[in-house]
């Protein structure tokens, strides 16, 4: 199986271990991984803040890059960026671009969804010693319906004990520019999540989106917590 990695600008620059981990897991499962260096950003920040022309420009670019790939699937370590690609058709009035957008959406998968639903794999041969808890990133959960898949994968990690957060589905408060436009509200929301994480007595909180991880990690460390924030791919790549 040939997989083209849709790395996401955030993971590429700010949380590369997520992308490196994704490559590792995919290769371990027998996929040949390609990376098109022309990719940059899917346009989500522009779209979410109301700058649609800029978002459209970047979307067209991303669509062309994906179309030029002969890989069997495009896989991303980010639910929100995958969701953005899945929403590309809403950016265009032009029916040709809408069709092209739908075409690339069909080929683009979030990592956990790809592993469980496309490769049919739950045990990726990972081992990680410790208590883990999962944070459901909002776009992955609500736009892509990803709820079960990461939990199945984590439960098969040797040595890991998966603990469920009572507010696993609650937003972490990031919301892109929201986190800096309304930082006090963002952090008030975040603190409820971090309170629950600390009460859960875990070694690490795991999520499928680097944006959530930055938000959660930033507050955990500011609060002097020993809990690590890890991307799903990092856990799955561990041996």
């Amino acid at each position: 199986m040939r997989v083209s990695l849709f790395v996401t600008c955030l993971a590429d620059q700010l949380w590369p271990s997520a992308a490196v981990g994704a490559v590792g897991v995919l290769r371990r499962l027998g996929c040949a991984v390609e990376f098109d260096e022309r990719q940059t950003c899917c346009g989500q920040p522009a779209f979410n803040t109301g700058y649609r022309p800029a978002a459209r420009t970047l979307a067209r670019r991303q669509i062309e890059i994906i179309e030029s790939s002969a890989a069997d699937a495009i896989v991303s370590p980010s639910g929100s960026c995958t969701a953005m690609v899945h929403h590309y058709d809403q950016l265009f009035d032009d029916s040709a671009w809408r069709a092209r957008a739908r075409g690339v959406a069909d080929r683009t998968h979030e990592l956990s969804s790809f592993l469980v639903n496309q490769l049919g794999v739950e045990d990726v041969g990972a081992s990680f010693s410790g208590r883990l808890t999962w944070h459901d990133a909002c776009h992955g959960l609500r736009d892509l319906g990803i709820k079960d898949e990461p939990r199945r994968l984590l439960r098969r990690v040797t040595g890991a004990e998966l603990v469920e957060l009572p507010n696993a589905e609650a937003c972490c408060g990031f919301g892109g520019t929201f986190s800096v436009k309304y930082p006090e509200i963002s952090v008030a929301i975040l603190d409820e999540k971090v309170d629950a994480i600390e009460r859960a007595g875990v070694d690490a909180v795991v999520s499928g989106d680097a944006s959530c991880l930055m938000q959660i990690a930033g507050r955990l460390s500011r609060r002097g917590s020993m809990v690590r924030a890890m991307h799903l791919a990092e856990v799955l790549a561990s041996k």
Partner: protein
Amino acid sequence: MTFERDARTALADGQLRGALRQATTLFGERRRAALSTVPDWEGARDRARAIKDETLEHLDRYLEQFAANAERAGARVHWARDAAEACDLIGAIAERRGARTVVKSKSMATEEIHLNAALARRHIEPVETDLGEYIVQLAGETPSHIVVPAIHKTKAQIAALFADKLGIVPSDDVATLTAAARAALRGSFAEADLGISGVNFAVAETGTILILENEGNARLTTSLPRTHVALMGIEKVIPRFADLDVFLQLLPRSGTGQVLTAYQSLLTGTKRRPEDEGPEELHIVVLDNGRSRMLAAAVTRQSLACIRCGACLNACPVYRQIGGHAYGSVYPGPIGAVLSPQLFGLARSAALPYASSLCGACRDVCPVKIDIPALLLHLRAEVVDSRVGKGRLRERLAFSIYAALMARPRLFEWVMRFARRLRIMPRLGAWTKWRDLRPLAPQSFREQWRTGLRDAGDADA
């Protein structure tokens, strides 16, 4: 900006935050328990949304049918293009009917048009009879939640308020406080000659208006006085009497987790014989006030599907922290963030579409499947296009730079590598005041890819 300031005030109010946390958690749990008693909850949501879509797409026809049937049954139907016209109409009715004691049951539309202030200018003081609204009225405040307007007040505050305004001995027993309000309001009900209510649903097929409640004050407001005035937005109409079933399945469960509220009043015109119980005159005021504009696009038209259940407020992580007052509008929370700019203008409410993390919890719980995040994104694009609100210049510049960089991968990489070498991170005080920033990893993913990761593909990871 007022929103930021009011949000900060709310965040600093520990008692308010505790009350909000308790209320939203409780209503959320009750809602979840209640929807499991409907055999096909998702099917009910779809059916309700389909009915709303059908209605809105032919709204003129259904409104005409409603008005004709209501009038045939003896009601007088009035039309108000805006808030001022609605206030004038209602004020004129009150004066013509010689109203001295006016009672009101809960109606957000009457708050939207600032009816009480308009009536006060005619020396008519309506008494709010819903307990939460009564408390808020006595305190000279505004409601902070659609379903529990006084959620922001403790019983101690209410006791002090009642001691001051009603002359009771302060008590911390909620039943005692409620009984005090009941006793005071019974006096108003006994004398009331005009009752003002809202409308939950207006049935086109029969000209019926439906009002639901738990306390009984709406029934008293609409059955005792000789004149009843009911205010409804144009979007309240539904096509058929039988359609009430699906909405009554969805609304109480979504709002408070009840299967049914204690009372539903289905009122069709006026009494048939003078000796029957009930008002002599029923006046229905149909209000536009900016709603018709929302019909112009599918994404905004769904705003009018809202049945005012309050579920989105209870699900919203932002509302949970800041409550209703910070939104600065009669309509708070997620639905308020999309209704207020559309009803009252983007300039007045430019902050609201951005006061959301776009988590989508609201869309999950909306009984009529309004896609609030899509609406928020639509309004954000409008805010940017219309250049309202402050601080846009810097943001516009930032996004121009961002777009330019992202269209040029080599330039993007060069800038990031530069930042990495010199350990430059934008000093985002708004981030770093409360959160640490991870230092940039020594190599980005693409650098690692090029310097070995790509070729490691043949070896096992």
